[in-house]
Each structure stands twice: as C-alpha cells, then as structure tokens.
C-alpha cells in the first residue's frame, strides 16, 4: 500500500539535521519559503519501500518556546502543521540538554522518533548509551544513526513507517501534586469553554499557559471566549508562585531536567576521560584575549588570498572560452549575409561580452561561499561572535550580529535573512542597516579590475583592506545609529558555543553550489535583461555610433556625471556603470566592458587610460559603499515589512559613499597624489 507522509527533522542547532536531510533526500530537494514568512524552507522527497516521504529540514531550536523568527517557524510547523512523524535528532555527546526538547515534543503529543546522532563520537568520548532504556523511559522509538555516514537511516525510516496516527500517550513527567492539580483544573476549563484547534492537546495548552508562554497565550487569546481562561491561568500562576517561591516555568524546567537526569543515570554510562579536548586547545588560541581578533582577521586575509589564487586559473579558462565564443559567433554572423549587422553587435557586444564579464567571477564567488560555509559548519562562526562581542557592544549590538555580517561578504541577501536568528527586533533592524557596507562578492569584480589595473602586485592585501574599510564604516554607522535611532539597552546574549566538527563535504558542496547557482541564475536573468537594456540604450537613437556619448545612454550618463565630478570620475561612463550597478553590482564591470570599446588591449588597460590611481581608489570606495543592489533593498523591505528602512538605507548609503569618495579624491589631491 502506498503511503504519503510528512516527516519533519527537528532538533537543537548543529546536531546534524541538515546532514541527515542531505543523506535522506540527496538531490531531490528544493528551497522554498515558509508561507507568509521569508524563512527558507528546505523540503525534499524520498521514496522508501514504495512510500513517498516528504522530508522537511526545520531550523534548529532548543525548546518549544520560540525567541527568534526561525525558532517560531520550527515550532509552528510541529505544533500547527502536525507532521506525520517528527524525527528529533539528538547529539549523542550532549544527550541531557538535547533531550529537553524531546521531552517537550512528546508532551505536546507529536509522533516522535528520537534519532541518536554522532554515536561514533560518543563512543570515542567513552559514552555508552542504552537506547532501549531511553526508548522505554520516553515511550517513543530511539534509533542510533551516523548521519554523515548514512548508517542507521534504513532503520529510522522503517520505524517512521510503522508509526501511524497519533495515539494518546500517558504523561511523561509528573510535576508534583500541587502543580498537577492546577494543570488538571485548567485543562477541564479549557475543554469546557473553548474549542481548541484540532491538534492541540488541552493538557499541554494548560501547562503552557501556566508556564507563561507568550506565543501560546496569544494563540489562545485569538479564540472565542478565551478571556476567562487567560485570567484563570494568570491567577493560578500567581498562586503557584506564592506556594513554591519560584515561578512555574522554573519548577517545570526543574522537573523536566530531573526526569532527564534520572533517565541518564539508568541508560547512560560516562567514563570520565581527560576533559582537555582538542576543541579546547584550539579555543585557547583562536579565542585568546589578545590574539583572538588578529587571528580572525588573519583568517579573513587568507580567505581572500585563497579566493584569488585558486580562482585565477579557472577565471582564465572562462575568459578564453568566452573570447573564443565571441570571436566565432562574430565571424558566423558576419558570414551569414541574411542577418543585419546589428544582430552581430547585439549578440557579441551585448550578450556574450556582458554575460561573460559576469560569469568569469563564478570561481571566486564559489570559493568565497565555500569558505563561509566551512566557517559556519566547523563551529568557528560562534567563536568569531564571541571575540567580536566587545567591539559589537560599542555599536549597541552583540557578537551574534557579527555572523550575518560575515555572511554579507558572500551576499547581503542571505545576510539580511540570517538576521532572523537574532531575537530582538531592534537588533535585527540595526544589523540590516549596517549590513550593506559588508562588501559582497558581486562588488569583488570591480576591485579585481581596478586594483589589478593599478596595484596588481598587492591585489590580495589591498582587496582585504577594502573589506576592512567596509567593516569599519559599518561599525561607525552602527555607533551613530545607536546614539540617534536606537537608544536603549542591548538585548541579551545567550548562545551555545558548539564543539568543533569536521564539516561534511557533501553538505558544504550542496550549500555552495546552491548559492553559486543563484548567482549564475541571476547572470542568466536579471543581468541578461540589463545587458540588453544597456545595449539598446547604447545603440539609440538610430545611426549613432555604438555606446558613444551621443547615444541615449551617453546622454543619461552625461546628465548625472557632474555629481561625481568632485569624486574624480566625472565622465559619463562611470556614472552609467554606477547607475546600472543598482540593479545588480555584477553589472558594473560589464557596463564598462560595453561602454569602453574593448578591442584587444583588454578592460584593464582601458581602465588605466580612463582613470588615475587616485580616481580609481575613489571609485572603488564608491562601489564599496554606495546603494546596495535592488535585491538587498527588496530583502530589507520584506524583513522589516515597511518601506521606511529600505529607503533610509538607500539615502544613507548614497550620502556616505559620496562623501567618502570625495574625501579620498580631494584628500589625495591635497596630499599631492596624482
């Protein structure tokens, strides 16, 4: 018989959910959005023994109380969407804390299977786990797996298929007579007065109300006649506080950890081994009080140099490939006498050169995304958050906000989305506002071109300095915003410091390919469209010389160019390039390719003849800081749900960029730099 079922993968962050997801679904996965929200939803399908299983990779959570939007999504999916099976992935080396979520999932009435992951690591750490006993305690199946080796997944799926329909489970934990009485009373009241949505267990709701869970209180508030229940719960809460001298949530946490502690005693044997692990030794160095920050920047520097060193040969290959394509297409069209000459110009000048000048950066971008993904998966990102916490505090943020900033080096769009991890709205907005100054990979081509043309000997180092300058402006802006727009206390910093792990090659590759593919797709769609628009504007009015000052595009550029006069690049071509760069930063270089008639000398040489080293520097600063691309503006609009902040970003970044470019150019002139 064919069954179709939905299986959700839940668990704490970093326990191997995504690794298991990749192991189960392979390439049959897609990234979508959660309805109404913009959190990425990773779904995939899998066929097993004639059944079709829809697997959903949920964001990591520590409990069923949600603090960030990401956690809210995970919680709501389990609570409201009622998946047929919830596989709770548990890090076997950190069982006690992980089981806290398991207990809550089971209490909620979900169909839980506990997947004990990383059992080999646990074995190495001399932890012996009796999974049968755990299953007995929890009343749900427990399976040992090793996600990165795909062991145990068959057994896991067998168990998933055998679990059908929700059954009423006996209660897992007893919270003491007094509390239990209150839960029972409230449960009765709920059953009597309101109609709960189908999948809600009234007892669980009663407990959550007593625990003072805001989200659940809001949900119940939305139901008819619920006022009396909310009031009753508040009264009970107060009474229980008076009796126990502590809030209900503390008593509940105590009881849950007490239960888990008992389970651990029965089912787990830990041999005390030498605690000073490799992880701690690494941390001594990379989180060193004085050396931590220099090491972080040294790593960044290595990262950028690797990007160029390993990217270069591939870039040459792509360059040669597109050159040949342009040449042979050009000759082909010339020989095909039926085609008018403008077709050749469109295809060769417009499309092939335009797209080629963008796709050439795929190797760089691939490498950059790969290194960011490795930083994330290995656990280093959390260290960076720790060492940058003090610096970030000056800006009114805390270290956790630094993670989206690093992701911004790849692309600001996922970086803006990564702010969903932050708990306070104020932190989120502030982090989004300063994120565009983190130089994304689309700006890289401009640096490569300009720095290569003038200062090629120190390319890696200079580009690294450009990135540093971006961070500097971001932090300075943060400080300014904190003093003006976002006064008040910083939000709390509570985050786990995960142990170091070897990143799974497959996971890194899937993630990197996904991101790079988005870039290629962008090249094929948005950038393709802009290239054609540029070509059309450069060819009109009819009969004018292609991409000359008399063309429409030339006139448009000539119109805005005076604005950039004080920055040292008041010609019309850079103005046009910057204008189209707002659509996508990748286009800046391609526009130069179209506007300066590139023959044999190459774009670099042309830049050399149109810019001085000083005006090149000012232009690079301009590209680094000015308006983020449309996609980022749209992302900020989506995430803040208003036009206010995206518009603010557009205006603010434009002003800052212009001022900085003018300072660089005029300052340089004053100092006598040519």
């Amino acid at each position, binding site marked *: 018989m064919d069954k179709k079922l939905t299986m959700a993968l839940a668990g704490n962050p970093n326990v191997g959910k995504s690794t298991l997801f990749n192991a189960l679904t392979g390439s049959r996965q897609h990234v979508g959005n959660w309805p109404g929200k913009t959190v990425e939803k990773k779904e995939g399908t899998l066929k097993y023994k004639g059944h079709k299983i829809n697997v959903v990779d949920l964001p990591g959570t520590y409990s069923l109380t949600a603090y960030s939007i990401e956690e809210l999504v995970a919680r709501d999916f389990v609570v409201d969407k009622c998946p047929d099976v919830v596989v709770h992935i548990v890090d076997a080396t*950190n069982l006690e*804390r992980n089981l806290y979520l398991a207990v809550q999932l089971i209490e909620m009435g979900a169909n839980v299977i506990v997947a004990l992951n990383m059992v080999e690591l646990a074995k190495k750490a001399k932890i012996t786990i009796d999974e049968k006993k755990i299953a007995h305690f929890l009343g749900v199946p427990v399976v040992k797996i090793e996600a990165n080796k795909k062991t145990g997944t068959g057994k896991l799926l067998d168990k998933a298929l055998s679990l059908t329909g929700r059954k009423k489970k006996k209660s897992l934990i007893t919270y003491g007579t007094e509390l239990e009485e209150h839960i029972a009373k409230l449960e009765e009241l709920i059953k009597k007065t309101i109609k709960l949505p189908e999948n809600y267990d009234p007892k669980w709701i009663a407990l959550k109300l007593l625990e003072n869970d805001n989200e659940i209180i809001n949900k119940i508030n939305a139901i008819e006649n619920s006022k009396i229940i909310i009031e009753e719960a508040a009264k009970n809460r107060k009474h229980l506080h008076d009796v126990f001298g502590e809030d209900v*949530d503390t008593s509940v*946490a105590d009881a849950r*950890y007490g239960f888990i502690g008992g389970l651990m005693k029965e089912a787990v044997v830990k041999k005390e081994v030498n605690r000073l692990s490799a992880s701690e030794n690494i941390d001594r160095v990379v989180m060193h*009080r004085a050396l931590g920050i220099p090491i972080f920047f040294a790593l960044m520097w290595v990262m950028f140099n690797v990007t160029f060193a390993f990217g270069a040969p591939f870039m040459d290959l792509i360059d040669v490939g597109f050159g040949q394509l342009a040449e042979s297409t050009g000759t082909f069209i010339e020989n095909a006498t039926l085609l008018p000459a403008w077709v050749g110009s469109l295809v060769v000048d417009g499309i092939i050169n335009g797209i080629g000048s963008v796709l050439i950066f795929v190797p760089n971008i691939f490498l950059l995304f790969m290194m960011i993904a490795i930083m994330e998966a290995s656990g280093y990102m959390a260290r960076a958050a720790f060492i940058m916490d003090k610096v970030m505090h000056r800006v009114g943020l805390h270290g956790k906000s630094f993670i989206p900033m690093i992701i911004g080096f790849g692309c600001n769009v996922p970086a803006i989305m990564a702010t969903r991890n932050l708990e306070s709205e104020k932190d989120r907005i502030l982090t989004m506002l300063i994120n565009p100054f983190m130089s994304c990979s689309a700006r890289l081509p401009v640096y490569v071109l300009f720095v290569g043309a003038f200062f090629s000997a120190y390319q890696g180092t200079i580009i690294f300095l450009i990135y540093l300058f971006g961070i500097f402006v971001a932090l300075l802006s943060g400080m300014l915003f904190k003093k003006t727009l976002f006064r008040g206390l*910083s939000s709390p910093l*509570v*985050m786990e410091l995960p142990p170091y792990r070897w990143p799974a090659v497959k996971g890194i590759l899937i993630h990197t390919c996904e991101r790079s593919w988005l870039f290629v797709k962008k090249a094929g769609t948005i950038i393709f469209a802009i290239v054609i628009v540029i070509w059309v504007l450069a060819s009109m009015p009819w009969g004018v010389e292609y991409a000359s000052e008399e063309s429409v595009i030339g006139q448009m550029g000539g119109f805005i160019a005076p604005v950039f006069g004080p920055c040292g690049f008041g010609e019309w071509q850079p103005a046009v390039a910057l204008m189209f760069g707002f659509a996508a930063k990748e286009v800046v270089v391609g526009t130069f390719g179209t506007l300066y008639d590139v023959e044999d000398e190459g774009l670099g040489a042309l830049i050399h003849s149109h810019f001085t080293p000083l005006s090149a520097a000012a232009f690079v600063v301009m590209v680094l800081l000015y308006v983020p691309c449309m996609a980022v503006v749209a992302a900020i609009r989506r995430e803040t749900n208003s036009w206010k902040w995206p518009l603010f970003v557009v205006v603010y970044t434009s002003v800052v960029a212009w001022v900085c470019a003018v300072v660089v150019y005029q300052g340089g002139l004053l100092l006598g730099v040519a």
Partner: protein
Amino acid sequence: MSLAMAECGKKVLIKEIASGVCLRKRLSDLGIYEGVKVEVVRNDFSGPVIVSVLDSKVILGRGEVHKIMVE
C-alpha cells in the same frame, strides 16, 4: 555574588536568576536554571562569559551574567 564575579575554573551553583521570564526560559532551555551547577570556563571580567553545563558550553553576555546569582 553574581556570575560576573565568578572566576575561571570554578564550579558554581545557580541560586537565582533575577530577570524577566523570557531570559529565564531561554537560559533554562540551555540547561541553566536555579539549582543547577555550572563551571565557569572563561571570564575576563569584561565581555561575555562562557560556562560549561550539561556537556555543552554557553556564551552569556556581560549584562546577563550580572543577573545570575551564584554561590
């Protein structure tokens, strides 16, 4: 004394978490609640503190450790 004053390497018992329910719940999700023992792994007396609890490590901001009373 508050956790902010606890020295590196010390094992301390959490006596009271004097904060709103939100932060208190967050902490208990990570295994830090009244009555549990934690080990201070890192405290520079400025910047965040790292404690070890239930086989994992947790970073706590300076503002938060002031609200956690220990002995």
